[in-house]
């Protein structure tokens, strides 16, 4: 009964969202209609939010007459996972996705004054997008379907790999990022529909865009971290198709935020800004399509149902084609009156826009080409890390060099950048010496690794000089840009060292014996069967003595979950600031020895720390009082 109330509320919300959209786009706008639209949207949102809260309550109280809850939750689960089970599969996670989308619209609705000329149209566009997705949810993936008359007593279970705090937070954070770009998207469409090129709309969406970007950054990093310690993948990035569809909007969003700050300052790059706002949201929708249409097999994809895929494709297609048509038809309106000066800050940002566009195109190719190829020639090909590395590394290095030079450039002025000026020369000399030292120290001539370290070191040293000048010479410094770019430099250096130094090996060890690996003694102390609440496991115990004589224990496990019979590996990781020692156990061989996989991962923590630092810069910007920041 309660589930029907929830169902009904979301139906009602769909109707009201439709009305809000209809009023804003098809009824001539007056102050009366703007108020009406705003109020209708808020009411619709409250209905949808109540519907979702009731649904959460149904999950918490183990209402297994709801088919989705029965299939994905279990009465034995802690409350935390009963809630997160809602987004452990397609229907519920789509529901959450839509609710998040409506929350962004709602906050925009209450934060922006009704007199704002673009507000009604922006709200209207958000409403229509919500209607489309709500219909998708209700018609093709109904989370409210019930099993009657007899409901199962205990439910099934949430996928064990999802029973993890990081994973309970990872999808919601990522979704908040994806759908957050609906605000810049809808605003730029509203601007195009309105047709008055004098409106300075860019400034009002700055913080919204940065906020969505922060969520996306954190969401992607959480996913990377989770795959490392919970899935036992042993690394931070795998170019998995679904990682790629999250990376594309992130790259587009990063380019978008930079373009946006140019447009705010000088109304330049408006074409880029608008095109990128369309691209970011389209790529977010594309991500939803890829994951939910079952077109790609991946750890992330949901069950295959061509019906859903077709609906999503049609709806997303309409959104993208309409916005591109609108963009084309209003092109003359957003054309800049003057050209960008060469060597100005704007010019560097537009060069990097092109480079980011190239990266996005390369990933798009990597994701879709195997699909199209298989369709046309009936042969499977796989595009993996070598392809992406070959394209990414040189372009990222190039983009970093432009970033490095742009530090000395000025807005709207094409002053010549003197390569022998002190800060540039100092950073360059420092970085060259650093790279040569690294090359000798670690005996490497891998040009791409050395170049990446060089690029990272250039950025870090250049921004350190800026911070130094800010502290002692009171020179102006944009703190958000400095921190975010320092984080980028750190990211480049950490990734390079990680791929340069990290090693792994599968060892065969018998109980009470030891193997040596990289100056470490891995001693196999003990192995026993243990029982958890919903699984049994073999738990091995290793004592590791490192080159300095430090001792520590690592206890990797292999678990078998009762309900689904699924087997998972529980990694054991010894963390130090410089390196992780990462242990997983495999199977027992016939001679009684066990396969133990050991990895030494250098600076892997620093990769996530860099991402956190980038997000931190974004958060600082969101909470800053000053209005003219980039």
């Amino acid at each position, binding site marked *: 009964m309660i589930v029907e109330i929830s169902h009904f509320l979301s139906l009602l919300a769909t109707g009201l969202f439709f009305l809000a959209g209809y009023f804003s786009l098809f009824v001539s706008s007056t102050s009366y209609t703007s108020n009406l639209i705003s109020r209708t949207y808020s009411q619709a949102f409250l209905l949808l939010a109540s519907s979702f809260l009731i649904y959460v309550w149904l999950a918490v109280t183990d209402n297994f007459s709801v088919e989705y809850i029965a299939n994905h939750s279990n009465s034995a689960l802690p409350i935390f996972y009963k809630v997160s089970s809602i987004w452990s599969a397609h229907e519920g996670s789509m529901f959450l996705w839509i609710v998040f989308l409506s929350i962004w619209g709602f906050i925009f609705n209450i934060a922006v004054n009704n007199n704002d000329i673009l507000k009604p149209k922006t709200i209207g566009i958000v409403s229509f997008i919500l209607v489309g997705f709500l219909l998708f949810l209700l018609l093709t993936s109904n989370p409210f379907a019930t099993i009657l008359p007899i409901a199962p007593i205990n439910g099934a279970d949430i996928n064990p790999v999802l029973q993890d705090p990081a994973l309970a937070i990872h999808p919601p954070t990522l979704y908040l990022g994806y759908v957050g770009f609906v605000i810049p998207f809808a605003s730029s469409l509203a601007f195009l529909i309105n047709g008055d090129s004098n409106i300075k709309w860019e400034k009002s969406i700055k913080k919204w865009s940065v906020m969505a970007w922060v969520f996306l950054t954190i969401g992607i990093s959480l996913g990377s971290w989770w795959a490392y310690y919970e899935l036992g993948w042993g690394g931070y990035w795998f170019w998995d198709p679904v990682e790629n569809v999250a990376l594309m909007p992130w790259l587009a969003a990063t380019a978008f935020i930079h373009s946006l700050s140019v447009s705010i300052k000088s109304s330049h790059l408006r074409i880029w800004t608008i095109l990128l706002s369309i691209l970011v949201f389209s790529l977010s929708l594309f991500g939803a399509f890829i994951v939910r249409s079952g077109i790609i*097999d991946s750890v992330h994809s949901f069950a295959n149902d061509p019906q859903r895929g*077709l609906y999503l*494709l049609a709806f997303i297609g309409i959104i993208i*084609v309409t916005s591109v048509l609108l963009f084309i038809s209003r092109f003359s309106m957003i054309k800049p009156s003057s050209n960008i000066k060469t060597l100005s800050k704007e010019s560097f940002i537009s060069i990097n826009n092109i480079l980011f566009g190239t990266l996005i195109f390369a990933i798009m190719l990597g994701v879709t080409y195997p699909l199209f190829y298989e*369709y046309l020639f009936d042969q499977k090909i796989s595009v993996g890390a070598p392809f992406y590395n070959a394209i990414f590394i040189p372009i990222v290095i190039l983009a970093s060099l432009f970033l490095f030079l742009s530090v000395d450039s000025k807005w709207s002025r094409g002053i010549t950048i003197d390569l022998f000026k002190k800060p540039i020369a100092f950073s360059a000399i420092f970085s060259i010496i650093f790279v040569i030292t690294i090359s000798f120290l670690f005996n490497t001539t891998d040009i791409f690794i050395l170049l990446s370290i060089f690029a990272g070191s250039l950025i870090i040293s250049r921004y350190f000089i800026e911070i130094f000048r800010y502290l002692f010479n009171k020179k102006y410094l944009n703190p958000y840009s400095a921190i975010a770019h320092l984080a980028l430099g750190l990211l480049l250096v950490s990734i390079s060292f990680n791929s340069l130094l990290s090693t792994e090996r599968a060892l065969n060890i018998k109980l009470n014996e030891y193997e040596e690996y990289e100056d470490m003694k891995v001693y196999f102390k003990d192995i026993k069967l243990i029982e958890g609440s919903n699984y049994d496991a073999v738990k091995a115990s290793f004592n590791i003595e490192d080159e300095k004589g430090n001792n520590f224990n690592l206890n990797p496990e292999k678990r078998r979950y009762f309900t689904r019979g699924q087997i998972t590996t529980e990694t054991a990781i010894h963390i130090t600031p410089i390196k992780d020692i990462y242990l997983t156990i495999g*199977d027992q061989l016939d001679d009684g020895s066990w396969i133990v996989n050991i990895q030494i991962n250098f600076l892997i923590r620093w990769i996530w720390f860099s991402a956190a630092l980038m997000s931190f810069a974004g958060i600082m910007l969101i909470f800053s009082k000053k209005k003219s920041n980039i």
Partner: protein
Amino acid sequence: MKILLKITVLLIPIIFIFMFFFLLTEKKPYPGADYKEFPIPNFNLESLYESEPLTNVDLRGDYIINIWASWCITCRIEHPYLMNLKNKRIPIIGINYKDERYDAIEWLGRYGDPYDKIIYDFKGLLALDLGVTGAPETFLVHDGVIVAHYQGEINNSIWSDVFDPIIKEKEMFK
């Protein structure tokens, strides 16, 4: 903006949309499936772990043969499903195909070993006799005779659509 550029900007999403439309509506009744019956060819190869000889005599009853390799990315995607079959007590004979022994053992160590026996086919000799074109491929074997063959990754829907009818018909895995 030149008209050509405008058309290009519009065409890119439209082409993608149509390609995906064709992908989604494609109705291929499992092009990778093949029901030609033939006996397991004679072979004499080593096992992956112990390097002991393995021949036809070592394979008895009903089982599936799975061709895999550590270099094969699709095999990794397929792998959880094989673990699932193992839990359902379906015997799986692995043929490690054109792979380095060390890499293969490490791969199994990392992801788990779903196989009852693993034939180490470095030169692809047995695979050639079986008509294998790549990895992964899977054969359904009933009393020494191959009764179904699937090229590509197997999963739940392929198992129920391609293999299950034969399994029911021949009353296998009893």
